[in-house]
């Protein structure tokens, strides 16, 4: 299986381990990830306003590269995934945005949202299958109690992301179980960690992130996993005792990679 791969700015810098372990785990599962040539930063957050066009163009370029290569584009970072999927939805379903973006890019053949955008977890669930991943596990995480932290970016808006049930998701819990661990379901797993308020108000972030970690702890979790570098940062900076890891770190470990 071959996919286009969009790492995004943070996986190239502060979250190198998220990137490295995702690539190695994919390889072990027989998946080839081909990096999108000359990719640009997605901008970190989807531009919500109807009249924001230029800020969507870098995402459109990535989507067009995936269409060109005739492969789904896979991302690991929740934020990149949110931006790419929502911009793709605009290109498909919002004629005004789509028309204006295509004019900016002077596309001879207009891009109309033909690419398929997948989060790495969706790729594992829908293209590989969690049962097959379970077969590939050589070091099952037996006895570990792991809490999945979804945050907001993977799930919302539910209709566009179509990632899982936005109020009662199960994909990361199913992933945890496939690796042989026990999944802890707890309150606040799909509420916001405080996001970019990290820059100007750490106390506010601490309040929001502590609610998440306290919920996980009360549920008996020994670690929390996430797909988002900013969630990881915010949860870790809370100073709780529970380790916060990327989901790819667990996969890497369970596949027996070193």
């Amino acid at each position, binding site marked *: 299986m071959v996919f286009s791969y969009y790492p995004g700015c943070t996986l190239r810098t502060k979250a190198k381990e998220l990137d490295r372990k995702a690539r190695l785990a994919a390889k072990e599962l027989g998946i080839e990830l081909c990096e999108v040539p000359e990719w640009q930063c997605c*901008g*970190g957050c989807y531009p919500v306003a109807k*009249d924001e066009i230029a800020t969507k163009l870098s995402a459109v370029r990535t989507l067009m590269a995936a269409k060109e290569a005739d492969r789904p584009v896979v991302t690991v970072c929740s934020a990149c995934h949110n931006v790419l999927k929502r911009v793709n939805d605009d290109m498909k379903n919002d004629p005004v945005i789509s028309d204006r973006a295509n004019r900016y890019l002077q596309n001879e053949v207009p891009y109309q949202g033909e690419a398929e955008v997948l989060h790495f977890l969706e790729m594992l669930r829908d293209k590989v299958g969690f049962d097959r991943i379970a077969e590939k596990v050589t070091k099952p995480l037996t006895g570990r109690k792991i809490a999945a932290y979804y945050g907001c970016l993977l799930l919302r*808006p539910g209709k566009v992301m179509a990632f899982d049930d936005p109020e009662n998701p199960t994909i990361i819990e199913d992933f945890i179980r496939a690796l042989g661990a026990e999944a802890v379901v707890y309150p606040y797993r799909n509420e916001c960690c405080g*996001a*970019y*308020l990290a*820059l100007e108000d750490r106390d506010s972030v601490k309040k929001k992130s502590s609610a998440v970690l306290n919920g996980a702890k009360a549920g008996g979790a020994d670690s929390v996993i996430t797909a988002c570098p*900013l969630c990881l940062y915010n949860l870790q900076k809370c100073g709780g005792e529970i380790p916060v890891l990327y989901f790819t770190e667990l996969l890497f470990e369970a596949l027996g990679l070193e």
Partner: protein
Amino acid sequence: MEQKNLKETVLRISGVNPRKCMKCGKCSGTCPSYDEMEFHPHQFVYMVENGEIEPLMASKSIYRCLTCFACVERCPRQVEPAKLIEAVRLTVIRQQGQNHLKPDAIPALLDEDMPQQALVTAMRKYAK
């Protein structure tokens, strides 16, 4: 800008129809930044409808919204309050000299673990 134009701008760039709101308050009930806001998500909805845009523009509440979309997902009437908040914020920062975050201020806000994602997102949310 006059009040009427401001209201039109906010409605146009948000794409929201505040008249769909049935004032249930669910958006504010679910907002993670509720405690830190002077005007709450449901207030944005009716204040925009009433053309009271300037008090919203002057309020720090516009920098407290995390665009987490909880209010959008859980609104029983598909009003999408977060899009109104975004539109009010843009109406402010698109004006000359109104950036909420200036590049010079950033180095002091960083630590060595801060992901790039936080910076690019904040620059997009707080500056034009």
